[in-house]
């Protein structure tokens, strides 16, 4: 069996008396899409924050390509190739669309304060090269974003904000992208575009995997290779969506005990 790209082993965190994530085990192979589903407040976003280092796990380990990254600061985890988007999209609102993507390249560029001051040509060349690559990334995702690349990111409508966040994530040259509810605020056509974008990005970047928190069941049914279900911080099921949705425990998590009995 190939080495999993991401492995969680007994991962958990508690906030005071609340156990937000509890003993989660999970393997994500390379070139794989997994969706995380579960009711609101089940701990899905907390799980993302544990993987990306925003929270330090209370227990368990996070392995990336077999390497222990548990408890590393977020910027180091990002530099190792873990990119993410946020539930409420977090763009650099007052900077241009192009700058937003270029900031995603931070960990791949090198200029220090001294070299920026003493060898400005090299710093400028580095930034120009970033601008060129960022333009290409934008263009591959959306011609419109590319045309508007010098406008501030803050004025974009919701679907384009998501798209820009994905462009920024791609700029990191990631091995793993975590998307937190990418389709929220999108209509059906935008969601279909989103799925096409993800599929195309997967084709163009062999080995790249996606971990996606999603509520839109159409996307969950069509896109991922498998799904995991989280409830009260625990992983309660994993498998194909078509199978998982029939499990009584999953139906209980979504609909409640009574409803399942009546169904």
């Amino acid at each position, binding site marked *: 069996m190939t080495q999993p790209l991401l492995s969680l082993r007994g991962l958990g965190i508690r906030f005071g008396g609340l156990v937000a994530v509890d003993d989660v085990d999970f393997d994500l192979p390379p070139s794989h899409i997994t969706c995380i589903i579960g009711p609101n407040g089940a701990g899905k976003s907390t799980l993302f924050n544990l993987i*990306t280092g925003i929270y330090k796990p209370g227990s368990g380990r996070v392995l990336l390509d077999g390497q222990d990254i548990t408890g590393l600061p977020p910027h180091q985890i990002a530099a190792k190739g873990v990119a993410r988007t946020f539930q409420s999209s977090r763009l*650099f*609102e*007052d900077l241009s669309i192009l700058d937003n993507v270029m900031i*995603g390249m*931070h*960990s791949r560029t090198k200029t220090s304060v001294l070299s*920026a001051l003493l060898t400005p040509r090299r710093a400028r060349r580095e930034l120009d090269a970033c601008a060129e690559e960022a333009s290409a990334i934008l263009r591959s995702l959306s011609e419109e974003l590319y045309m508007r690349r010098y406008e501030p990111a803050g004025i974009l409508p919701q679907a384009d904000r998501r798209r820009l966040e994905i462009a*920024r994530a791609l700029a990191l040259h990631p091995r793993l992208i975590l998307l937190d509810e990418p389709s929220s605020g999108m209509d059906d056509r935008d969601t279909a575009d989103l799925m096409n974008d993800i599929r195309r990005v997967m084709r163009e970047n062999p080995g790249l995997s996606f971990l996606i928190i999603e509520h839109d069941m159409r996307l969950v049914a069509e896109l991922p290779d498998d799904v995991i279900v989280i409830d009260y911080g625990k992983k309660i099921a994993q498998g194909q969506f078509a199978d998982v949705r029939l499990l009584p425990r999953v139906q209980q998590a979504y609909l409640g005990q009574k409803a399942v009995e009546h169904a």
Partner: protein
Amino acid sequence: MAMTATHTHAPAAFPSALIVIAAEVLGAALLWGLLEANSTPVVLALLGVMGAGFALMQIRPQIEDIIVGAFRAARGVALWVGILIVLTYPILLGANTYAMHLVIVALLYSVLALALNFQLGSANIPNFATGATYGIGAYTSALLAIHFGLSMWATLPAAALVATAFGFLLGIPSMRTRDSYLALVTIAFGIVIHQMLNNLSWTGGPNGLVGIPAPSLFGHSFMQPIQFAGIRLPPQANFYYLALALLGLAILSAKRLHESRIGLAWNAIRADELAARSQGINVAWYKILAFAVDAFLAAFAGTIYAFYVSYISPDNFTFLVSVTIMTMVIVGGMDNTFGVIVGAFLLTLLPEKLRIFSDYRLLFVSVVVILFLILRPKGLFPQRQRHYGAHK
């Protein structure tokens, strides 16, 4: 090619070069008017003219775009005409040494405001301790010059190193806090430094340090007037050119950092710290770097100030100085080099020229800040988006 020019300018009614020259001459003339004005009504009238100009730009943003576009199109002309104006400015002021003094102080404050701009403007770090690092620079070089006989040129790097070390020292504990708590830490640091300067014996206590020797360059003492091609300039002109050189250095540093991944990372931190961390930016380190760069430049300004007035005391480096520097950045325009310099000049000259309001100085500063936050929240000259490649 991916980076073809999309911003071609429509043929303007005036060539860009003319607009640029007119704007620069007008700016220099306004400054000259402010410097030479002796009565409050004249000063107020000049302020009225400037206010009307900005009001016009606020109502009709096209005018602003045309001027900005002209400066972008005629960069070379703008640079050389600007250099010519600032080099010949002392001739214009002639024997008016008071006006010359004000310009030198304004130049030094411009450097300080640019130093703070790395933090406040680029990365949104509210640092109220620029006055303190300014003082550390001034005291370090004054002490070295008085006790060890070092020349100003030798004390410049020494003062910068000491102040940068203090900048790191302040930066590290500051990383444990943010926003208003961070501001409190920097205020405390500023007060501690001020109290130490006031109470230590080797800093001269409240009396400060006197008798800082005048610097010289290639045998030309800075106490001597400048005589060149039949033009005779007062001794202050030496320090005018020195401060100007320092401001040039500060502008160059600001431009180079802004146009590198460092400036981009600072801007990312300003916009959204959490998102910045998730892009691989070491937020704590970049904040500490901003403290260090601020201290480095402030120390240069402090050194030149100390040698210029040849006498320094703790009162030159109070909390109020830090607040004034912060106001300059806010009024001028966050993360816009030119705007910050305009802010520094305005806030240096106005309190001097409007002496009748001198009892209400703090009130004046607060009213100015509040007015700006309401009317033009991004300052006189807001930050412009970066452009890359062929068309900058």
